[in-house]
């Protein structure tokens, strides 16, 4: 294969790594549950871009699209359930700050 796809992979890859760092940092540095979910979403965006890029470079766009559609459906379900859990926690503790959620502390 020519050099160009490798270069494309390389510079897309740099941005995918940087976006992943943004998401991971958001999850690690925050104490707010909703913001942690937003950080997780950013990580999923990086993964989505990587799958689409792999599909584009290998010529398997159909398979990549099928995988991304599955990923999006699972992502939405996960967001709905985790949003419900956050609301449930807020109702019982009046906070979504993880430092104050110590009900299960051993």
């Amino acid at each position: 294969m020519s050099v160009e796809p490798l270069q494309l992979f390389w510079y897309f890859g740099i941005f995918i790594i940087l976006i992943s760092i943004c998401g991971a940092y958001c999850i690690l540095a925050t104490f707010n549950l909703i913001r942690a979910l937003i950080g997780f979403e950013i990580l999923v965006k990086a993964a989505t871009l990587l799958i689409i890029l792999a599909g584009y470079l290998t010529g398997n766009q159909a398979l990549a699209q099928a995988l991304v559609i599955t990923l999006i459906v699972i992502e939405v379900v996960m967001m709905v359930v985790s949003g419900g859990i956050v609301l449930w926690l807020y109702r019982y503790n009046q906070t979504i700050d993880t430092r104050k959620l110590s009900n299960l502390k051993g």
Partner: protein
Amino acid sequence: MNLNLILLIALLLAAFWTVLTIRLVRSVVGLALTSAILSVIMFRLGSPLAAVFELSVCSGLISVIFVTTISFTSRVSKERLTVRRRERFVKFWYLPVILIAAGLALMHLSRPPVFKFPVASVTQDAQSVLWNLRHLDLLGQVVVLLAGAFGVVILFKEKKDER
């Protein structure tokens, strides 16, 4: 090539703003913007079906879910917001430094990985792959959707019992 680069920079900036902004609603708007830019990139990479899904579901539905969740929680007072702004500055000033350092390090590596991409055997359209080859995925999606619906019903059932 250049347009791809501009879109990637915009994507990174949108993700960066999503992480750094203080108010949660603005953060959700940033996330929707990230999704919208990502869907344009996906369209340019020859995946229009997934791009439409990304734009409608991730940029639309997930933003609605987040805004609904935020609207059910209490509003932050102005004093708390000032304190939080200070806390975030202390906590998040590392992020741009890390990003710039990682970006420079990766650029200086500057050698594309040496491997060959496998060549696709048969070119098919997304619909036939999704419905014919990946039908177990569809079954999994249905199961996950039902599990999610069941989870939400359980969560809101407890709320009903309390009243």
